[in-house]
């Protein structure tokens, strides 16, 4: 295992656990018609194949020799977590703050995280993109975007 990216083993192991769990769950399916071609037959077949292929992959990875130049660069967990966190916050806050406020702040944060330090761009891009997307969905496609709650709803309604 020396020199190997242990992360390579994580996906097949998770898939095996996930497949075993789902396989067990297929026994809870309720049906009365077509007992031999019921709703469980296909998922079970696919899950068995998924377990088998994952096992073969683990076996193959265990015996594979990794060349030094082929080794992957390390994951920058901090950056990754920041990225996922601001997306999480954006989706979570949209229900309460509404589309406009949450998108303005999210775009600004995302640009900063992606390394943009130009002040002019940091002001103009969030404003432009937020309002262009708003116009496209709200007036172009008549799809109402989240308005938020309480005072934030009043703010959103100001733009309708």
């Amino acid at each position, binding site marked *: 295992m020396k020199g190997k990216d242990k992360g390579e083993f994580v996906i097949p192991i998770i898939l095996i656990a996930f497949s075993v769990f789902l396989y067990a769950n297929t026994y809870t399916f*309720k049906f009365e018609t077509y007992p031999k071609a019921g709703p469980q037959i296909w998922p079970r077949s696919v899950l068995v194949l998924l377990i088998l292929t994952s096992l073969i992959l683990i076996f193959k990875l265990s015996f594979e020799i990794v060349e030094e130049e082929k080794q992957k660069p390390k994951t920058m967990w901090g950056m990754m977590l920041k990225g996922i966190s601001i997306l999480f916050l954006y989706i979570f806050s949209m229900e309460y703050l509404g589309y406009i406020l949450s998108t303005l702040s999210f775009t600004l944060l995302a640009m900063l995280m992606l390394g943009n330090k130009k002040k002019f761009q940091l002001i103009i891009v969030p404003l432009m993109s937020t309002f262009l997307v708003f116009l496209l969905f709200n007036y172009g496609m008549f799809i109402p975007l989240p308005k938020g709650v309480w005072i934030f709803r009043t703010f959103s309604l100001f733009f309708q």
Partner: protein
Amino acid sequence: MDLFLIGLKTAVEPYYLSMAFIGAFLGVAFGAIPGINAIIGVALLIPITVSLDPIAAFILLGAVYTGGAVGGAFPAILFKIPGAPEAAATTFDGYPLAKKGQASKAIGMALFASTTGGMFGVLCLSFFSPQLAKIALSFSAQEYFAFALLGLTIIVSIGQSVLKSIISGLFGLILATVGLDKLTTAERFTFGIKPIFGGFEFVSIIIGAFAIGEVLERIQTKESGAFTTKEKVSTKLPSLTEILECKWTLLRSYIIGTIIGILPGVGATTASFFGYNEAVRFSKHPEKFGTGILEGVAACEAADNAAVGGALVPLLTLGIPGSATTAVMVGGLLIHGIIPGPLLFVEQTKFVYSFFSGMFIAQIAMLICGMIGVKIFVKILNWQYSILGAVILVLCVIGSYAMRNNYFDMWVMLAFGVIGYYMNRYEYPLPPLVIGLVLGDLVETSFRRTLILQDYQFFTIFTRPVSGPILIFAILALFYPAFRKYYVSKVVRKKSQSSP
């Protein structure tokens, strides 16, 4: 012919015409930016097409698909960086031409070959699809199962590791089983979560896995993604003499591209390599290939775009996508309640023929957009990824919300963004996941119907005149990756030998 004229009459209406132009422009732009390709472009645009009528929506998506195929050639010629995998072979002669100061000519030839190749592919699509659909109308569950299985064999031809591709495809097949069972209405893997009773929102998964996964990868590597060139780039279309010099190469590549496009799983990348290799094989001066000749650019670009029309044939006639992008396009059809398959040619005649005509117009639109917009596309390449990435993230989140005005779909998108990121990182290709998701329902339903119809004697399916040979072909298709590996390495070896 009458139907084609009705379709043409619809497609030339200003509304549909504008869709072809907008789609072609966006497609070329998506193709030109490395890291964003036609698949991501189509996925991002599906939510926007919700409010359009089905004809306009599908012309727009089709134009993005066809535009994406040529857009990839721009960075391939200018920077030796293919904007899309199918433009990889364009670097062989496109980049040496740019180094000689003839980038404008290379781009002009790429546009011309792509446009004419695309037109050829669309004409074949218009001619063969109705005939194939007529035959397909007589198919029963056994035949559908065989074709769906053949469609699933695309999975093994995508990605570096066959095993990882299969795992990705199986994961897609399992995701397709979530929700109420079509035959018995039994609840499967819903765990009481109401928004997934009807299954996962297809578009949220695609947007998350493809677009969010890609942006997370860029965040992680802090890659700026900006490219610059000092050369003044414009488009110089080939002269009549230059076209006549390449006429047989072009014609050969049109035919190769269309046939390869129709075959499930083979795709535009192989078509362009195949087109290039055959051009070298039939050339009187094979040593010139790889040194920067227009014929080299024409060979791969013509095949690449002819494959677009070809890939749409199995999608429209059988409901089986011929490529990864057409698999994503299924989402665009389904949100409008249109189910691809032979019945489409009976029940939605106007839609089908307007789409054919729209795709033909999209080729012309692509040429015009490419010629006028080349300077804009080069400028887009200079954009900082910090701007592009932030805008893509907003479009992803809002796009997945807009599908059903549902907050749950945004969380699904985020979850699949993280899954997509890890799959990318550990080289599990994403297209097999989409193909599994798209074909899952068809393959399962037809499999179970086959079991019932054949009185649970499954293997008698091999004795039927259509399903038997198709299943054997599907088994043979599993060996395609080994053939491709041999073929591509042969082309690359030949090319490196001919380069000075």
